[in-house]
């Protein structure tokens, strides 16, 4: 039933190489490049974080990110949008997600990048488990994927 696609284009186990995404989207028609990176912060809601584990539904997440890339290209006058998210355990300062957008002009690249990361956080089937200094861990409250439960 599940279509066999290469999910590693969007979901990766190891460190995400930004260089590859920049090379892939290289385009002399574009004058503006905006990259967003989400990095692991050592403090959240007053608690000391030591690392984060991302649980992911890889095929559905890959499809969600691919669909979002296409949607961004349709909604904004941008020429490239690439999204990548990590799965597994990340240390402080590591990058969990890249959003790479290239457009003719910078204003559109900024807007599209902002939209892409906001929507990725709302829609991608990815769950963040924060591990704390005191040895406990917690899954963060998130955005429901059930219609009518989008309380963000």
């Amino acid at each position: 039933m599940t279509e066999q696609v290469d999910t590693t284009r969007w979901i990766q186990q190891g460190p995400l190489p930004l260089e590859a995404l920049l090379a892939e989207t290289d385009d002399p028609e574009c004058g503006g490049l905006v990259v967003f990176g989400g990095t692991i912060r050592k403090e959240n809601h007053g608690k000391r974080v030591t690392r984060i584990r991302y649980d992911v539904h890889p095929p559905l997440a890959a499809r969600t990110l691919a669909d979002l890339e296409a949607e961004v290209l349709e909604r904004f006058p941008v020429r490239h949008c690439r999204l990548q998210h990590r799965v597994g355990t990340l240390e402080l300062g590591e990058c969990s997600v890249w959003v790479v957008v290239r457009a003719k002009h910078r204003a559109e690249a900024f807007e599209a990048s902002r939209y892409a990361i906001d929507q990725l956080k709302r829609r991608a089937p990815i769950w963040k488990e924060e591990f704390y200094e005191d040895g406990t861990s917690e899954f963060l409250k998130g955005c429901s994927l059930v219609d009518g439960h989008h309380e963000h």
Partner: protein
Amino acid sequence: MRLRLCLYGGLQRVGGGREHALELPGETMSVAELRAAIARAHPPLAPHLPTAALAIGDTIVTDDGQVRDGDEIGLLPPVSGG
């Protein structure tokens, strides 16, 4: 029918692990019926079902969808990626 129920995010803690086999009567049922069946088979999951989306394979389905023998069912609590 036999389904594979996969729990994601914090639901793995609530339901005790990622994968659970579900044996249910008949060859097919609606997603709404499946939700009720999951609540009966795993009572601790029941309070989480209203905000959990349900996927068959890599497609999120609504309550009027149908499940069939052999389907892989993902139970997806509110998401928090990024």
